[in-house]
């Protein structure tokens, strides 16, 4: 570390592909030893940001330091300080897990003996020790991702980048990866992870940055972000279209927010803070108003709703993810 106390600091990063700005004034600071979740839909620029910070892409503008080293002028030092887990499990599928880790260990310039010992350590740590000589191609998705993670940790990097580490994994494999990330963080590694899932950022990150059209539009602890967007939402579906306006007024009063309205489905939706109290209040108030609800449910906000609230527009598909 360069002694800056910052694992990542980016100022005004920009990256254009023709007419499309993949990143546009991207600012982010990740303090040492913390986990930052970069949250955004496809095309928001998450992967572009990670690729620039991992020295895989050169930015058009702005500057960035990783582990105290400038990514543009000292890429070799940055590479020696980071681990990168991309969207694909970037391992050799013909080789076994052990052969993969030994090869990468040699490319990190460990001696043959140390590379072998390190491979064994990591296989044990990620519960891959029993895989023997099996080629990585026969691993499950979760195992392959753990091998990928192990390969990124050969040098015990100061900063670890995880680009959508659980995309495409089943829930069980996803939990395995989450567990692995948590144990790393306990060991003091700084992590920048990108995700499309609010849930995942909430599970792992102490700081969440919301990315929209190449720019960080909200940044803070999960609690702060939740207080911005409302931790939970209440959904009420009424029987008759004529009841909607009354229900909107009731729910608006209780939640303290303007409810969103889906007229076609007679669905009213609003963020609430105290979930249980809100639920009982809404049920009682609707009953008092003589409205029979078809359905009432509490749920976590979707990424779409987070976006709508933070940016004023739906996440949609503003631009294709250019850098993948």
């Amino acid at each position, binding site marked *: 570390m360069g002694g800056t106390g910052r694992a990542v600091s980016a100022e005004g990063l920009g990256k254009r592909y023709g007419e499309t700005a993949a990143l546009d004034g991207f600012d982010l600071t990740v303090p040492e030893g913390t986990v930052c979740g970069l949250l955004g839909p496809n095309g928001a620029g998450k992967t572009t940001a990670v690729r620039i910070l991992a020295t895989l892409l050169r930015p058009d503008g702005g500057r960035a330091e990783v582990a105290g080293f400038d990514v543009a002028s000292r890429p070799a030092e940055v590479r020696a300080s980071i681990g990168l887990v991309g969207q694909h499990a970037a*391992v050799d599928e013909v*080789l076994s897990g052990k052969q993969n880790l030994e090869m990468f260990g*040699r490319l*990190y310039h460990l001696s043959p003996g*140390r590379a072998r010992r390190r491979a064994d350590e990591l296989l044990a740590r990620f519960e891959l020790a029993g895989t023997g000589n099996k080629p990585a191609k026969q691993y499950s998705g979760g195992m392959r991702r753990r091998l990928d993670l192990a390969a990124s940790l*050969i040098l015990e990097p100061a900063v670890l980048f995880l680009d959508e580490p659980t995309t495409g994994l089943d829930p069980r494999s996803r939990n395995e990866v989450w567990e692995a990330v948590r144990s790393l963080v306990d060991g003091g590694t700084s992590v920048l992870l990108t995700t499309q899932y609010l849930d995942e950022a909430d599970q792992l990150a102490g700081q969440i940055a919301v990315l929209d059209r190449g720019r960080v539009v909200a940044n803070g602890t999960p609690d702060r972000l939740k207080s911005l967007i409302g931790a939970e939402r209440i959904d009420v579906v009424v029987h008759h279209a004529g009841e909607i306006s009354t229900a909107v007024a009731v729910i608006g009063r209780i939640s303290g927010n303007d409810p969103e309205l889906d007229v076609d489905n007679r669905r009213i939706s609003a963020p609430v803070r105290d979930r249980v109290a809100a639920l009982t209040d809404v049920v009682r108030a609707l009953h008092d108003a003589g409205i029979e609800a078809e359905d009432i449910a509490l749920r976590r906000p979707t990424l779409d709703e987070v976006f709508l609230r933070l940016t004023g527009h739906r996440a949609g598909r503003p631009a294709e993810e250019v850098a993948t």
Partner: protein
Amino acid sequence: MTTSVLPQTATDRLRWAVADGWTVTRRDLAHWVRQPGPVIFSLLFSVMIVLMFGYLFGGAMAMPGRAGGGQASGDYREFLMPGMFVMTMLFGVGETVSAVTADARKGVTDRFRAMPMAPSAVVVGRGTADMLNAILVLLVMIACGFAVGWRAHGGVPETVLAFVLVLLLRFALIWIGIYLGLIIKGEEGVTMVQTLEFPLGFLSSAFVAPSTMPGWLGAVAEWNPLSSTILATRELFGNPGWGGDSWITQHALLMAIVWPLLLVAIFFPLAVRRYAALGR
């Protein structure tokens, strides 16, 4: 803490480049051992082509320089083998392209690029592995040639020079393969390259003498860089079918050196630029 020390001096950097390149080469050699199927298949495929042309079509092939034909088909196999040595080098392009695109597609190239290893190692390792593969293929083809009655009639220096020329061509083709592999994204592109190898090979002096083709087509075949290596090696082996009236056939030996060097001069910088452009 497990940390790496970055190289400080030019000597350190060179040592890293060699060591890293060799590590990447060893990865490919490990593939042959763990998954020998594709290597064996490609060897059998080349042997099959020798047998197909040597025995199936060979009897019907008109030999250059002998009006009226009617010669023993053993002559055709003598004519064929130098062409086949070069064809197997051409088949290697598809394998290079396939390996380069697979690494890019699966993110392995990006992992290498984000590691503190010598940047040249990815390409040097690929090239070394492909050259070792070419030597293996050539040894198998020589054995196959002996089995079908092909002989090198020249002296030892001529024979060695002929094989060096074949490998020089493969070396040049590696850079074409790496360049194409960095451009091509999907598996369809790889299949296209592999398919194009055949017309490219047929449009040379590998299987038939260009003098038997229509004038303009014959000229294209004679100027095909593969033809220069084929003609030069036929001459060095003392196999039939070399020579001709045009300038390009008269200077086959010279051009068997010039063509590969020219291809390297074009495609090496292109490949390096393309690799650097991955960061754009």
